[in-house]
């Protein structure tokens, strides 16, 4: 018998809202949006956690500049607090080495992280999801029942092709969908807005391609001053947070 599933609800009991930042496609800026959202909420005075579930290619720690940190053991593991955010990632255990996991291993890792992480009381837990509709997405839906989804795409038709599939499965499963953010826009095309509206999902707004954003990676104090952060804050005005 699998005992870990019994304790997950208790671990998440004192978290008010869980927001999974997801996309059907990789490379659209999910980690940047997830990390920036966590910083935005933390700056607003909320107690915030960030869980990086991109187990093959975790990157939130790079964006937040997390170095030489490790969870504390206390009736489980307590995530270190980084720039006001309780931050949990597989990277504490993989040391930046390649992570060749198969599907069953992914589910086991997610179960283990959810069973042993002591988040305490949080207003928000933000999840940086990997791309697609694979094990991680299905496990978040299965084990984190109150999760809401914030979906990210780029203006590309290629990205929207995959994002549309994610939106359709989330709608089919009746998961709360906060809306879609169009990231890295360079023109005034309304293609994404029309596609999202066609699926009866909220289009929250766009984030312009920020040519100097790369300079703020690893430096949250600079990140919160970027044009990307200003654009993200504007799109977040369309959600009740």
């Amino acid at each position, binding site marked *: 018998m699998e*005992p870990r*599933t019994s304790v997950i609800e208790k671990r998440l009991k004192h978290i008010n809202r869980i927001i999974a930042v997801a996309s059907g496609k990789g490379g659209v800026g999910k980690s940047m949006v997830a990390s920036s959202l966590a910083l935005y909420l933390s700056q607003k005075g909320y107690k915030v956690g960030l869980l990086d579930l991109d187990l093959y290619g975790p990157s939130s720690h790079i964006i937040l500049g997390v170095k030489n940190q490790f969870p504390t053991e206390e009736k*489980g593991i307590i995530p270190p607090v980084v720039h006001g955010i309780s931050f949990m990632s*597989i990277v504490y*255990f993989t040391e930046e080495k390649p992570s*060749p996991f198969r599907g069953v291993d992914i589910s*086991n890792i997610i179960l*283990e992280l959810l*069973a*042993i992480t002591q988040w305490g009381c949080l207003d928000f837990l933000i999840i940086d999801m990997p791309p697609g509709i694979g094990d991680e997405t299905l496990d978040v839906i299965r084990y984190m029942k109150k999760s809401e989804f914030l979906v990210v795409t780029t203006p590309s038709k290629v990205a929207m092709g995959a994002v549309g599939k994610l939106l359709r499965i989330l709608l089919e499963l009746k998961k709360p969908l906060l809306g879609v953010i169009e990231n890295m826009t360079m023109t005034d095309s309304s293609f994404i807005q029309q596609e999202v509206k066609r699926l009866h999902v909220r289009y929250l707004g766009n984030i312009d391609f920020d040519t100097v954003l790369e300079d703020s990676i690893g430096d949250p104090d600079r990140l919160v001053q970027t044009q990307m952060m200003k654009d993200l804050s504007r799109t977040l005005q369309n959600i009740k947070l």
Partner: protein
Amino acid sequence: MHEWALAESIVMAAVDEARKEKLKSITQVTIFIGELQQIEKEIFLFALNELSKSQKPSIKKDAFILKTEKSMLLCKNCGNTWKFSDMKKKLNEAESESIHFIPEVVFVHTRCPRCGSPDFEITKGRGVVLSSITGVR
């Protein structure tokens, strides 16, 4: 005390199951402990006994039986099989502790001793498994 969190999952699962089966008390809980997770048995048993107090249905004192399950790893590339204990001494303390927390990071920190492939599977002895519950109706 990461063992505490795992013990809590065992106690909650045992109580959930006993309620489903309408047991008035739990008299025996058998737990397999996978070698890979490198659980400190004394701490784990202490946590189990502490967490068992004031549960409904009640859990009899000394109800827990811990059995160690040796690991078995199988290489998908060359078919080789081996045990975690065969390679543990090659790991440094940080790598070994990471596998203690998340057994699947064995794929990150080790390779098949014969062909060097990272594509192997844990066929036995991964982590903590609730094997059986006995009780009184």
